[in-house]
C-alpha cells in the first residue's frame, strides 16, 4: 500500500528563522482549508560498517541508515545509500545493539524532523523542522496524495498543489520518481527521499541566515 508522497526541503526565507518560516507555511495551509491532524516525526541514525570487517580492502565502510516514521509506528526502516531498503519490526533496533561488532553508530549522527500534519481532502501535508542535536537545520515538507499509487500518474498534480502553497520554491522531480516511473510506490521510497534530504542537510554546515539556495 503506498500513497504517493514527495519530500522536499523548503529553504528558509530571508531574514527569518526556521521557526518563523514554518509558521508561515502552516498559516498558509490553514488559510487554504487544511485541518490539523496531530504531529509526525521522522528520525534517522547512521551506522557504518566496523573497521574489523573491512580486512585488507581499505575502502571506506558503507553507511547504513536506520530510520523510523511515525506514520508507520510499528515499523523500522534500514537502508543503504544506493542499495536496498529493509522494512522491519521495531525489534530491529534491539538487533542493531547485538550487531555492535559489525555496525558502529556514527557519532552525533541522529537527525530528525518533527512537525504537524495537515489533512486537505486527499492530500496530507507534513511540515517539519529538521533538527540535528539541539540546532534546527532546515525545513522538510512532505506531501502525500492518497488515491494514487503509481508515481508517474500524479506527479503533475502534486507539483501543482505544491506550487499553490510553496510559491516559487517548488523543486523539480526527484530522482526516485525517475527511476521507477510506473512501479507501485511504497513507504520505502518515502524513506529514501527522507534519507537524501537528511544527507543534503547534513552536508550544509549551518542554516544560512541570508541567501537563497
Amino acid at each position, binding site marked *: *500500500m503506498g500513497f504517493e508522497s514527495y519530500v522536499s526541503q523548503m529553504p528558509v526565507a530571508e531574514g527569518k528563522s526556521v521557526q518563523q518560516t514554518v509558521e508561515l507555511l502552516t498559516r498558509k495551509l490553514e488559510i487554504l482549508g487544511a485541518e490539523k491532524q496531530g504531529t509526525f516525526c521522522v528520525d534517522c541514525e547512521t551506522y557504518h560498517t566496523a573497521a574489523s570487517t573491512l580486512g585488507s580492502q581499505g575502502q571506506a565502510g558503507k553507511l547504513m541508515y536506520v530510520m523510523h516514521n511515525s506514520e508507520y509506528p510499528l*515499523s523500522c526502516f534500514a537502508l543503504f545509500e544506493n542499495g536496498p531498503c529493509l*522494512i522491519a519490526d521495531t525489534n530491529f533496533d534491539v538487533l542493531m545493539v547485538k550487531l555492535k561488532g559489525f555496525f558502529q553508530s556514527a557519532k552525533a549522527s541522529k537527525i530528525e524532523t518533527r512537525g504537524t500534519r495537515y489533512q486537505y481532502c486527499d492530500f496530507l501535508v507534513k511540515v517539519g523542522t529538521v533538527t540535528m542535536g539541539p540546532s534546527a537545520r532546515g525545513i522538510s515538507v512532505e506531501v502525500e496524495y492518497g488515491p494514487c499509487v503509481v508515481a508517474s500518474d500524479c506527479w503533475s498534480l502534486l507539483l501543482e498543489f505544491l506550487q499553490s502553497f510553496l510559491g516559487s520554491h517548488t523543486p523539480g522531480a526527484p530522482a526516485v520518481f525517475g527511476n521507477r516511473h510506473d512501479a507501485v510506490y511504497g513507504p520505502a521510497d518515502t524513506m529514501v527521499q527522507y534519507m537524501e534530504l537528511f544527507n543534503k542537510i547534513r552536508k550544509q554546515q549551518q542554516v544560512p541566515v541570508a541567501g537563497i539556495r
Partner: protein
Amino acid sequence: MSGVRAVRISIESACEKQVQEVGLDGTETYLQPLSMSQNLARLAQRIDFSQGSGSEEEEAAGAEGDAPDWAGAGASADQDDEEGLVKFQPSLWPWDSVRNNLRSALTEMCVLYDVLSIVRDKKFMTLDPVSQDALPPKQNPQTLQLISKKKSLAGAAQILLKGAERLTKSVTENQENKLQRDFNSELLRLRQHWKLRKVGDKILGDLSYRSAGSLFPHHGTFEVIKNTDIDLDKKIPEDYCPLDVQIPSDLEGSAYIKVSIQKQAPDIGDLGTVNLFKRPLPKSKPGSPHWQTKLEAAQNVLLCKEIFAQLSREAVQIKSQIPHIVVKNQIISQPFPSLQLSISLCHSSNDKKSQKSATEKQSPEDHLYVLEHNLHLLIREFHKQTLSSIMMPHPASAPFGHKRMRLSGPQAFDKNEINSLQSSEGLLEKIIKQAKHIFLRSRTAATIDSLASRIEDPQIQAHWSNINDVYESSVKVLITSQGYEQICKSIQLQLNIGVEQIRVVHRDGRVITLSHQEQELQDFLLSQFVMDLKVAVRLWFSFPVTSVKIFQKAMFYKIANGVIFVDHSKKFSGIKWKVGTLFIKWSCLCLHLALAYYDFFPEQNFDLKCLQTNYKHKEAITSKNVYLAFETFHFI
C-alpha cells in the same frame, strides 16, 4: 578154569592227590592229603556260629556232604592247614575261633541262667510285662465305619479351617490397608479431571483458566488433603471420601452474574445494595464425587469474578456519552433514556448466616439468562483468542500478538490499518449492544401485539423469523382485512430491528428508518392501517329478487327490502337498500362509510355519482327468484 586168567583189578581212589609240583623230568610231587583231624579242623573253621538255626542245618547238610571228602581230603587238610595258617595269623590253632565262639556262647548262657535264677526269687529283680494296648473289643462294622468317617472328616475340616483362617487374616489386613489404597485411587480420579502438582509434601492443584487463555491474576490453587479422621471400628459412612480439597477462601460458595433491565431508575440511595438472590445450585451429575462439585463451583466463582472485573475495568476506562456507574458489585448503565441495565455479581457463600439474610428475593424474571450466557461465551472467546494459532507466533521467535499485527511492522502498515486490526469493542460494549437489541425487540413485539389486540379490523399479522443475529432480528408484518386477504396484499412490511433503530422496508421498495421510540413505531403502523383502506374491494352481493319489472330503460328488481334499478345499458343509475336489514359482512372501514351514504328512502333515487363506481352485474333468472349479483369497486 582152564584158561581164564585172573584179571588184576587195581582200585584207585577217585580223589587223586593234588599235584604240587611237576619236576623237570616228569616226576610229579604230590600233596599229602589232609589227615582226618586236619580235615575236621578245616570243616570246623567253616562253621559260622553267628548264623541261625536254619543255617546250621544247611551247614550240617553241607558238613555231611563233605564227609566223603574226609578220606580223600586228608591230603588237602595239610594244604588247608597251611592256608589256615596264612589266614589266621593271630591264632595258629584252627579251632581257635570255634573255641572263642563256644566260650562266648557259654558266657552268655551263664549270664542268662544267673538272671533267670535271680528273677525266680523275685527278691532283687522282677519281671514286668510290657504294657500293651488292650485289644479293642470286637465291634459292629457300622460303628467302625462311622468312627473312621468322623476322623477323616475332622482331618478335612482342619485343612479347611486353616485355609479360612488365612483368608480372614488377609481380609482384615485389606481392611486396614483399604484407606491407604483408596486415597490413591481417588487421587487418580482427581487427576483425570484437574491439574495437580506436588510441592514439597503438599499436593496442589490449579482451578483457574490460565492454561485456557485467561489473564486474570488470581492464583486459583487448591490443596488436596488426606481425610484421616476415620474410625475403623465404627461403620464407614456411605459418602466417605478419603480425599478432601481445600479451596481458597474467596472462591467459596456459588456465584452468578445477574443481568437485568429495569424501566425506571431506582434512587441513588439504593445503589450498591446487595441484591443477591440465591440461585439453587445446578444439580451435579449423580455419581460425581463431592470434590468435583466443590471444585466446579469454585471455578465458576472465579470465572464470574473475572467477567465482572473485566466489565468494571471497561466501564471505568471507556468513555461513553452517559458514563457507567460502578458501585460495589453492580455496574449500571443506561442504554436508552429511561432504561437501566444493571449487571451485578451475586456471590453467596455457603454459611448459614448469609442464607438467612437472603430471604428478600428479587423477582427472578428480571434476570436475563440469555445475556448471562452470552457473557460467559464472550469471556471464553476472549480466552480462546489469547491462545489461538493466530496469536501463537510462527516462527517461535516472533513476538506474541495477532498474526496481522506481527506483519504490520515488516509491511509498514499505517495508523488506519493498524486501528482496523485491533478489535475496538470490549465486553461491556458488546453486552450493552445486545441488551439494547433485546429490549428493542421485545418492545416492538409488545407494540405490535397491543395494536393487534386493540384494533379489530384491519388485522395485523407478524411473522418473526427464527434465525436471528445477536444484534439484529427481523419480522414481517402484514396488514389485511378479514375475508379479503388475497386482494389486499400490498401492505407488507419487513421490519429489521437493529441495536438502536428499526428499519422498515415497504413492499414497494421504500425504506424508512425509525428510532427506538415506541410512539414512532405505533404511529407508523397506524398510518399503514389507513393505507390499507386505499385498496380495491370487490364485493359480491346477491339478493333474492321477488319480482322483476322490465321497462324500456330500466329494470326494476324488487327485493325483500327495497328496489334495485338497473339500467338497460348496464349502467348503474340507482340503488336503494336498507342499511339495517341487509346482512352483509362489512369488514372494511370504507364500506362503513359507503353504507352511511345510503339510506333507504322509498321515494328518492339516490345518486351514486358522487362515488366512482364501476360495476358489472350478472343476473340469473330462475323460475321464482332472480338473483342479482354485482360487483362494485369502491375507491376512497
